[in-house]
């Protein structure tokens, strides 16, 4: 499919405008996010990724946990479920097992996926169940007002770290690789076409796919740390990010504070629901 520029998209007849085909017409707007937030950019990337794969909307489920990112599913015209804090991957596991033909996408924030949901995250990766986990990493709990999260940089201030944060952050993508995910990539809400491509690759992947979308929160932790406005923090995503290839040519000191973008792993390992189909066959052979 030919990619349209933003201005071409706006001029195009309405049925070809992606957002009009995927946003819910029955859902009242505006959305819950602050002006300038990166979450809407991730949602746009998801919608365009689904569109580029030409999936039937009936076959797509979008699940979330709790937090700002948790509010994403309600706006889009898929099978959508806003679950409990941290547990979206576990809900999705049950759905995927009984509907293995569905494309089940799970969106989570960093606190949702890595703190309260950290156990589910590593076990879903270990199982290699065919879900696409998209983690919007803004370093904080935005909805509750900027408390420190599992990805808050050491030394930063947060609403619950008024004297500076003393813990080290989880590198989400690297963690997912170590836990056994089949596909892991990281991009940012500045590199939106790349993000869209990685999400499409993740959805197309048979096994557990993780896409870490680096974002920011200019209204909470950004304000506390004087990281600037939304455009300032967007610019920082651009300036601080390097490719995996560039990172490979740097020593550890040079990599400090950089955001490494790229595909970290893309491996073909057996997917869980397909393996379970073999269990069913085995059980029925023994039975017969």
């Amino acid at each position, binding site marked *: 499919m030919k990619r349209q520029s933003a201005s071409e998209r706006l001029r195009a007849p309405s049925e070809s405008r992606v957002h009009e085909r995927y946003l819910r017409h*029955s*859902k*009242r707007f505006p959305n819950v996010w602050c002006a300038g937030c990166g979450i809407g950019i991730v949602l746009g990337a998801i919608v365009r990724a689904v569109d580029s794969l030409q999936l*039937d*909307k*009936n*076959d797509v*489920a979008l*699940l979330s946990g709790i937090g700002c990112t948790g509010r994403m*599913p*309600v706006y889009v*015209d*898929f*099978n*959508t*479920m*806003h*679950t*409990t804090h941290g*547990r979206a991957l*576990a*809900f*999705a*596991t*049950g*759905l*995927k*097992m*009984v*509907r*293995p*033909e*569905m494309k089940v996408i799970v969106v989570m924030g960093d606190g949702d996926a890595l703190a309260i949901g950290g*156990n*589910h995250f590593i*076990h879903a990766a270990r199982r290699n169940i065919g879900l696409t986990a998209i983690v919007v990493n803004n370093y904080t709990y935005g909805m509750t007002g900027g408390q420190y999260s599992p990805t808050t940089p050491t030394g930063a201030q947060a609403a619950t770290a008024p004297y500076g944060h003393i813990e080290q952050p989880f590198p989400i993508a690297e963690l997912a690789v170590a836990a056994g995910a089949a596909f892991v990539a990281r991009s940012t809400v500045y590199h939106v076409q790349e993000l869209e491509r990685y999400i499409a690759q993740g959805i197309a992947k048979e096994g557990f796919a993780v896409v870490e979308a680096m974002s920011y929160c200019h209204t909470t932790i950004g304000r506390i740390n004087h990281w600037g406005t939304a455009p300032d923090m967007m610019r920082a995503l651009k300036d601080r990010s390097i490719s995996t290839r560039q990172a490979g040519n740097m020593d550890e000191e040079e990599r400090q504070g950089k955001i490494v973008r790229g595909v970290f792993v893309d491996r073909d390992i057996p997917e869980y629901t397909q393996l*379970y*189909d073999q*269990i*069913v066959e*085995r*059980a*029925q052979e*023994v*039975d017969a």
Partner: protein
Amino acid sequence: MTAETNVKDAQPAPAVRGQVLMQGDEACAEGAVAAGCRFFAGYPITPATEIAEVLARRLPQVGGKFIQMEDEIASIAAVVGASVGGAKAMTATSGPGFSLMQENIGYAAMAEIPCVIVDVQRLGPSTGRPTSPSQGDVMQARWGTHGDHPVIALSPSSVGEAFTLTVQAFNFSERYRTPVIVLMDEVIGHMREPIELPGADTIELVERSSTTVPPEWYMPYENYPADVPPLVPFGEGYRYHITGLHHDERGYPTNRLNEVQPWVERVFRKIERSLSDILLYDTDGIRDAETLVIAYGATARSARYAVEMARERGRHVGFLKLKTLWPFAEEIVEHAAARLHRVVVPEMNLGQVALEVERVVGRHKVHRVNRVDGEMIRPAEILAAIEEWIR
């Protein structure tokens, strides 16, 4: 892609029938298979582990799915997710795991997703005595999660009832779009008894109601019909939203006051208007009784024995065995106890159902018989309570 899930492609359960010697946990698992359960997610815990072990073997035989999750929180979450996908789904645990599950049980109540949670109770609090019986989770079953919502909880007192009430739990959960809890005690879960398994063709099964309206008309949370709106599984062309936030008829989050309280009222109404279907109990000799014994679960077995002994001594003792603990059988208890001056309530806790009985008939009428040491209440203890009062 076809609209069929591969759980629906499953063959019917092989007809197990006739007399078999079985454990309560096994009977519960077989009851689930017979009820059409095709998804189980759980986490090992004494004394409920056998249910998972049986279903790990049985479910794939009938085309179902089994998964051992990383904890109980994930187990109930996977169960709710599977139910949204259209499968009848269950988990099984004991007190500590039941505590962990509470938030997502509340989610199932809020989102009105059918599911069955088996709690094989052990002595608590905390790790307690893992292999000893208890009935200490009665109030947790009712009030374990936050907020106001109705709940259905059933308590078997024999291996046979572990089978039949598990079937019933699935039927209630599908009919009323609500989580249903099976509260076994350890004694029932681990006891072996010969039971007569009904043939698959004789078991009445309830399927959740579906809809024929076009997808754009579908309202997953409307009041119609009879306060239990149809629930269409994900993946069948009816794209809608499910949330644990208070929501409107479409399932979208709402803060409108004229939508929040009416939802709460509807979910209570859907249970209350069907009490004649939901309240399961056995009565014996209530009409000419002077004393009434109310019991449930394993304690009902001791109580029944004590009632027989008292009758042999010429006492007029009535017996009410509750199989449905929640909603509480208020009117049944009120009616049975109306002309009586004394009600004996034995239970393996410090008086949880007794609180409900006292609420209905008045504290002065109720004599509690309690044990919380992990031992069963013996018939003689209940008999002594009956006799003491009569003297």
